[in-house]
C-alpha cells in the first residue's frame, strides 16, 4: 500500500464517517438525541481528526478539533444538542467534506476554504467560550490511583514513557512513523525523545524502504492510556509498542527493558537519557530483578501485573473484552471486500463473452444433434446463467444509501421554503445496479425538490384544505416485473391539468385546440422550457430540471410517469431496468435481420390472423382483436424499411411497457436468449428505435429493439397522421 492508496482509503473513510455523522445529526434533530447518537457523532469527528493527524493534515486536524471539543461538551451534557447547534454541525460536516474533496483533487486549501474554516470555527467557539475549557495542562491527573503499587517505588517522573519499535515494513505500508509522533504531540507534550539507530545497517546494506528506527519518548499528557494507544492503532501490527503510565513501578521499566531485544544496559541508558528514570532507580531495579529471577516465576504478564497491583482485574477484563470486540469488528469487516469497480466491469464483460460463446456452443450442439453434446451444453448454459446472475448481483447495491441522503435535502429545502415537511422512506433494501444508483441521484433530487416546492402547499393552504399541517413526502422503491420502480410522492396539491395545458399553450409547446389525454398533459412538464411556477423560486421554477430529469432517466433506459389527483397529491414513478449490461431477450427475425426484444416487456406471442395480414397496409388502422381487447400493432418490416416480401404467416409479439400494450409484427419467432448489450457507440448513438446491439451465438450482430421509443414514435406518427387529416 503506497501513501496514495492510504490517502485514498482515508478519503473514502472520511466520506463514510461524514455520512454517518450527518445521519446521526439528522436523527438527533428529529428526536431528542440519544446518547448513542451523540457518541456516534463524536466518534466520527474524533476518528476523522485522528486519521487526518496521521497524514499530517494540520488544517483538517485543527478545524475538526474545535468541532470535537464542542461535541465533547455535548457528550458530557454540558451543552444541549439544540437545533441551531445541529445546523452548525451539519455545516461543519459539509465543510469537512469540502476539505476532503480538496485533498482528493490534490488542491491546496485556498483562501475561500480557510475563510470558511475560520467562520465555522468562530461559530463553534461561541459554544466553548461560555464555559471556559480548562487547558490540557491544568486538568487534574486522575490516573494516579490504579497505578499505585506496593512492590517497588514509583519512579519520580510524572511523564508517560513510550517505547516504540516500529515494524520494519511500516514505510512500505504507507505510514510514516514521524506522523504518529507528530500526532502524539496533539495529545500532550513530548518532553524528550531519543531515537534508536542501533539496527541501522551499513549504508550499502540499507533498504531505503525499511524502517530501522525506534524511539523512546517521555511524554507529558493528561490523556488516558487508551487514547495514547489509539495513536498507534494503525501500526500496532508487527511493531513493539510499550506504553508505561506515569509513576509506574521500577519493575515495570525493568520488564520493559528486558522484553526488548537490545542489551539491558544500553536500554537503561536510553531511559535515563530520556529522563524517564534516574540512574539510581535503574540500578536498584536491575539489582532487585536479578535477585528474584527464577524460571518458575515466569507468569503471564497479565497475572504479574495484577499481582503487582499495577492494573486492576477489572481493567484486564475490560481490555480482554475490548480485544474481543475488535476481533468481532474485524470479522464483520472481513465479510465485506472493497473491489475496484473496473475489475467488476471487466468480470461482467467476460461473463458477457462467456454467454455468447456458450450460446454459440449450444447452437452447434443443436445443429449436430448429438445427445451427449446437447446434454453437456445445456449444463454449461445453466451454469453460465447462474454465473451471470451472481456476477450481476455483485454490482447490485441497496438504494437505501441514496434515499437517506434525501433526509438532508428535505430538511434543508423545507427550512428554505418555510414549509414543514416530513420524509417517509420505504423499500430501502431494494437493490439495483450501482451505475444506476449513482446516476439516479440527480434526477431524484430534482423530483424531490420539485414536489416540495410546487407540490406541497404552504401551511395556511393545507389547513384551509383540511390537511395535516405537516406535509409528507414519500420515497419508495420496489421491484416490478424485471424493472425497479422508484416513487416520489407527496400529499400536496397535485398537478393542475388546466394550468399545465394553458402554460404549454402560452409557451407554444402545443396548440390551444389540441386534444390530449390526462397523461399527455402531465408529461408536458418534462418538455424543455416548461415551468408553471408563477414566481421563479430559488429551487425550481426555472424550467430547467424536469426535462433534464427525463433525459437522465431515459439515458438509463428508464421512464418516468406521473400520477396525480388534484388536491390530494402527486406521484412521480420512475421505472428503471435492473441492470445495464445483460438482459434476457426474445429473438425474432425480419427478412435477413435478427432483432431482440427485451424479454421482460414481452407478454405473449401470437400468429397474426390471416384476415388481418391481408389488411391494407396503406390504412393506418393496424390493430387486432386480442381476446376482446384492441391491440394496435406495427410492422417491424415497414417501420424499419426492410426490403423484401413478408412470409405468408406472420407473428405478433405482444409487448407491454408501463400500462401500454402494443403488437410488433415480425416474420419469425426464434425464442428466448440471454444477451449482452453492446452500446451503440458514438457514431450510431442517436439512432431511434434501436437500443443497442448484441452478438448472437452465430457471431452475427442482432439489434435490440427499444420498445419505449418505438411506441413513442408510433404514437407520434399516428398523431401527425390525424393532425394532417383534420
Amino acid at each position, binding site marked *: 500500500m503506497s501513501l496514495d492508496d492510504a490517502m485514498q482509503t482515508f478519503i473514502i473513510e472520511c466520506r463514510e464517517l461524514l455520512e454517518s455523522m450527518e445521519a446521526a445529526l439528522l436523527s438527533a434533530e428529529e428526536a431528542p438525541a440519544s446518547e448513542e447518537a451523540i457518541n456516534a457523532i463524536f466518534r466520527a469527528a474524533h476518528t476523522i481528526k485522528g486519521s487526518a493527524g496521521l497524514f499530517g493534515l494540520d488544517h483538517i486536524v485543527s478545524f475538526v478539533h474545535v468541532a470535537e471539543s464542542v461535541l465533547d461538551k455535548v457528550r458530557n451534557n454540558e451543552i444541549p444538542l439544540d437545533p441551531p447547534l445541529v445546523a452548525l454541525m451539519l455545516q461543519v460536516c459539509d465543510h469537512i467534506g469540502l476539505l476532503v474533496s480538496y485533498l482528493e483533487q490534490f488542491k491546496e486549501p485556498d483562501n475561500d476554504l480557510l475563510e470558511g474554516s475560520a467562520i465555522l470555527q468562530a461559530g463553534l467557539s461561541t459554544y466553548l467560550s461560555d464555559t471556559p475549557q480548562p487547558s490540557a495542562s491544568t486538568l487534574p491527573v486522575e490516573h494516579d490511583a490504579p497505578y499505585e503499587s506496593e512492590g517497588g517505588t514509583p519512579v519520580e517522573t510524572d511523564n508517560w514513557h513510550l517505547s516504540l519499535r516500529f515494524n520494519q515494513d511500516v514505510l512500505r505500508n504507507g505510514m510514516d512513523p514521524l506522523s504518529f509522533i507528530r500526532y502524539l504531540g496533539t495529545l500532550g507534550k513530548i518532553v524528550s525523545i531519543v531515537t534508536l539507530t542501533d539496527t541501522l545497517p551499513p549504508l550499502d546494506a540499507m533498504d531505503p524502504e525499511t524502517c530501522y528506527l525506534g524511539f523512546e519518548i517521555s511524554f507529558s499528557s493528561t490523556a488516558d492510556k487508551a487514547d495514547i494507544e489509539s495513536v498507534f492503532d494503525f501500526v500496532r501490527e508487527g511493531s513493539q509498542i510499550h506504553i508505561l503510565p506515569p509513576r509506574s513501578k521500577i519493575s515495570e521499566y525493568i520488564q520493559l527493558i528486558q522484553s526488548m531485544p537490545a542489551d539491558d544496559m544500553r536500554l537503561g541508558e536510553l531511559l535515563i537519557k530520556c529522563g524517564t528514570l534516574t540512574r539510581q532507580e535503574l540500578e536498584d531495579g536491575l539489582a532487585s530483578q536479578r535477585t528474584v529471577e527464577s524460571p518458575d516465576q515466569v507468569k503471564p504478564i497479565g497475572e504479574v501485573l495484577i499481582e503487582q497491583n499495577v492494573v486492576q482485574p477489572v481493567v484486564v477484563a475490560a481490555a480482554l473484552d475490548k480485544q474481543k470486540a475488535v476481533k468481532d469488528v474485524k470479522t464483520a469487516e472481513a465479510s465485506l471486500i472493497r473491489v475496484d469497480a473496473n475489475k467488476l466491469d471487466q468480470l461482467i464483460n467476460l461473463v458477457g463473452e462467456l454467454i455468447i460463446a456458450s450460446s454459440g456452443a449450444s447452437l452447434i450442439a443443436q445443429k449436430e444433434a448429438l445427445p451427449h453434446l446437447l446434454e453437456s451444453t445445456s449444463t454449461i448454459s445453466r451454469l453460465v446463467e447462474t454465473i451471470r446472475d451472481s456476477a450481476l448481483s455483485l454490482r447490485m447495491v441497496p438504494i437505501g444509501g441514496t434515499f437517506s441522503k434525501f433526509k438532508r435535502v428535505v430538511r434543508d429545502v423545507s427550512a428554505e421554503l418555510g414549509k414543514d415537511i416530513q420524509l417517509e422512506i420505504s423499500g430501502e433494501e431494494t437493490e439495483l445496479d450501482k451505475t444506476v444508483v449513482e446516476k439516479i441521484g440527480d434526477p431524484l433530487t430534482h423530483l424531490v425538490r420539485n414536489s416540495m416546492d410546487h407540490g406541497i402547499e404552504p401551511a395556511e393552504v393545507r389547513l384551509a384544505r383540511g390537511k395535516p399541517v405537516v406535509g409528507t413526502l414519500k420515497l419508495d422503491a420496489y421491484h416490478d416485473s424485471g424493472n425497479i420502480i422508484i416513487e416520489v410522492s407527496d400529499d400536496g396539491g397535485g398537478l393542475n391539468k388546466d394550468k399545465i395545458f394553458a402554460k404549454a399553450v402560452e409557451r407554444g409547446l402545443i396548440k390551444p385546440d389540441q386534444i390530449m389525454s390526462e397523461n399527455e398533459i402531465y408529461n408536458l412538464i418534462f418538455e424543455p422550457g416548461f415551468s408553471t411556477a408563477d414566481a421563479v423560486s430559488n429551487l425550481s421554477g426555472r424550467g430547467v430540471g424536469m426535462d433534464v430529469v427525463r433525459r437522465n432517466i431515459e439515458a438509463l433506459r428508464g421512464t418516468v410517469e406521473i400520477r396525480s389527483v388534484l388536491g390530494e397529491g402527486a406521484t412521480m414513478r420512475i421505472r428503471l431496468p435492473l441492470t445495464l449490461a445483460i438482459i434476457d431477450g426474445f429473438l425474432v427475425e425480419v427478412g435477413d*435481420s*435478427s432483432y431482440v426484444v427485451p424479454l421482460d416487456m414481452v407478454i405473449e406471442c401470437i400468429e397474426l390472423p390471416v384476415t388481418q395480414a391481408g389488411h391494407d397496409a396503406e390504412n393506418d388502422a393496424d390493430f387486432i382483436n386480442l381476446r376482446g381487447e384492441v391491440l394496435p400493432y406495427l410492422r417491424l418490416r415497414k417501420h424499419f424499411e426492410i426490403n423484401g416480401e413478408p412470409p405468408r404467416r406472420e407473428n405478433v409479439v405482444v409487448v407491454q411497457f408501463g400500462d401500454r400494450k402494443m403488437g410488433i409484427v415480425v416474420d419469425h419467432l426464434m425464442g428466448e436468449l440471454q444477451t449482452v448489450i453492446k452500446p451503440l457507440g*458514438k*457514431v*450510431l448513438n*442517436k439512432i431511434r428505435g434501436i437500443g443497442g*446491439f448484441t452478438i448472437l451465438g452465430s457471431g*452475427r450482430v442482432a439489434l435490440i429493439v427499444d420498445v419505449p421509443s418505438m411506441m413513442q414514435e408510433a404514437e407520434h406518427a399516428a398523431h401527425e397522421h390525424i393532425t394532417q387529416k383534420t
Partner: protein
Amino acid sequence: MVETVKQAVATGQSLVAGGRALEDQQQYLTFMLGSETFAINILSIKEIIEYGNLTIVPKMPSFIRGVINLRGAVVPVIDLAARFSRGEAAISRKSCIVIIEVDHEEVQQVIGVLVDAVNEVLEIASEQIEPVPSFGAKIRTDFIDGMGKVDQKFVIILNVNQVLSVDEMAELVQA
C-alpha cells in the same frame, strides 16, 4: 492478396513501434474505390478483414453500411464510396473492410471502412506529397491530406479524422 497486405500492415506497424520509421518516410495503405486509388496512413489502421457477416441497421444514411462483430465488439462499417457521394459500393470478391481507429474526444473509436480492394503498403516520402488542390479532386477538400506521387501518378491521401468524423456522422445518423 489480402493476406500479403495484411502482413505488410502488421510489419509496418511493428516498424513504427520499433521507432525506426523515419519522420519523412511515412507508410501508406493504398486501396481502390471504383477505378481510383486512395491512400491512408498506416498508423491509423488496425487491421484488414474480408467483407462478410454484415448486419444492416435500419433507417441509416446510405454511407452507413451496417455493423459487424469484430471479436466481440460491434463496429460500424462505413461505405466510403457512399460517403464521397458516389453511390453505394458494389460488393465483389475483393471487397474488404479496413478497420481504422480514429480519435474522438480523446477516446479511440473503431470504425470499419468498406473499400473495393486493397492494393499494397507504400512508403511515400514527404517531398513526394503535394498540397491539396482547391478543386478537381471530386471529393471534399477537407477529406484530403495531400496528393501522393506514386509511379508518376497521384493517389489521394485521405484525412481519416475528417472522413470518419464521428460528430459529423452522428449528426447525419440523427437526421
